[in-house]
């Protein structure tokens, strides 16, 4: 999950944060990190480039990208499916 946090910080250019600043279950949107719909699209590309995973429906975004933990679970689940 540390790697994932680093990748997110890099992809979304959140220069004022370090991986340690982001809690595993902290909401990425709204009151938490304050990300928005454009960030969802950035994260979809991140999953595609780094994990070869395709989130085809932007509407799935809120569920998958709720927190670092939910993203990590999604990645693990999908990678098991494709393995």
């Amino acid at each position, binding site marked *: 999950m540390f790697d994932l946090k680093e990748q997110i910080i890099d992809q*979304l250019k*959140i*220069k*004022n944060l370090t991986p340690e600043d982001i809690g595993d279950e902290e909401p990425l949107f709204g009151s938490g990190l*304050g990300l928005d719909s*454009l960030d969802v*699209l950035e994260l979809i*590309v991140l999953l595609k480039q780094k994990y070869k995973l395709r989130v085809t429906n932007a509407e799935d975004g809120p569920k998958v990208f709720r927190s670092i933990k939910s993203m990590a679970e999604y990645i693990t689940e999908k990678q098991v499916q494709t393995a």
Partner: protein
Amino acid sequence: MMKVYIRSAACISPQKTFNSTSFLDKLVTYEDNKLTCIEPDYSEVIDPRVIRRMSRVIKMSVVSAVACLKQARVANPDAIVTGTAYGCLEDTGTFLASMVEQDEDPITPTAFVQSTHNTIGAQIALLIKCKGYNNTFVSGGASFENALSDSMMLLAEKNNANILVGGMDEITDMSHAVLTRLGLYKRQPVSNINLFEAKSKGTINGEGSAFFLLANSATEGDLACIDAVSTFYKPVDITETTEQVTSFLAAEGVDKNDIDLLITGNNGDEKNDAVYSALQHSVFDSIPTVNYKNLCGEYPTSTAFALWIGAKMIKTNSIPAILNEGTAIATPIKKVLIYNHYQNSYHSLILLSAC
């Protein structure tokens, strides 16, 4: 046109123009064919969460816009109008390059979204919650002038209104490389101190952002008034240029002897500057003149920088030594004319007066 009042002005440029207590008291020198902006610490003004997506031109513009509003003590203007020839070039280049490198898939959306020409006006509106009129002109070397004309019309249409208007353009590595290949800039490094002595082909690249709060009624502390703005495109020869200038002055009821100071857009390129020198032997004869592009470089919206210095000179009733090449200039400075042309295609005239 009805005259409008410049309530405040803020400018980020290659000189110390932003948050500076003095008025251009010392020239910042460059030994290069490009002059890039002295940028402030943005994090003091913009939330880091918002700033992360912003390219340089967006940051410079948003910060100078906010500073301009603060000086005028206006929280929310009636309209925001911007002029930019190139728009958000850095984001455009980023998206284009990633599209080519990734062979159209997969690429991220942020640079595309931010590359839209009205991003600056939109970001300012979002930041200050301005729900009013929002427009962006991308008319090459007349972009800022069009934004000014639009603002002046808006002020004539509405009582007690105020408008935030700005001009901005940025240099990117890609644009500098392309414009250099197109032969716009001097081949040898040149010092901006000696720009007008070089007498050779090419100028120096420049950039900047300048914002103004314009109002249709006077307030104590106004910097100056804009009496009129006019543009003309590709005059066939110097005779037509002279006629255009003459008819502008006639329409404004201004005799050339009324003009205390002329600000011209000489940029060090021989062919470019020949236009100004021809006019200085005719319609502008014996008007005290200063140049400004040794301070900010050449770019399509450089007249926003010229307007900033013009308004400041009227307000302070002084001419910074670095602008004055030894001309004796009578004070008070009550009427200032800015005349610029961009590549002899876009010509513009902005007439300023003391309030």
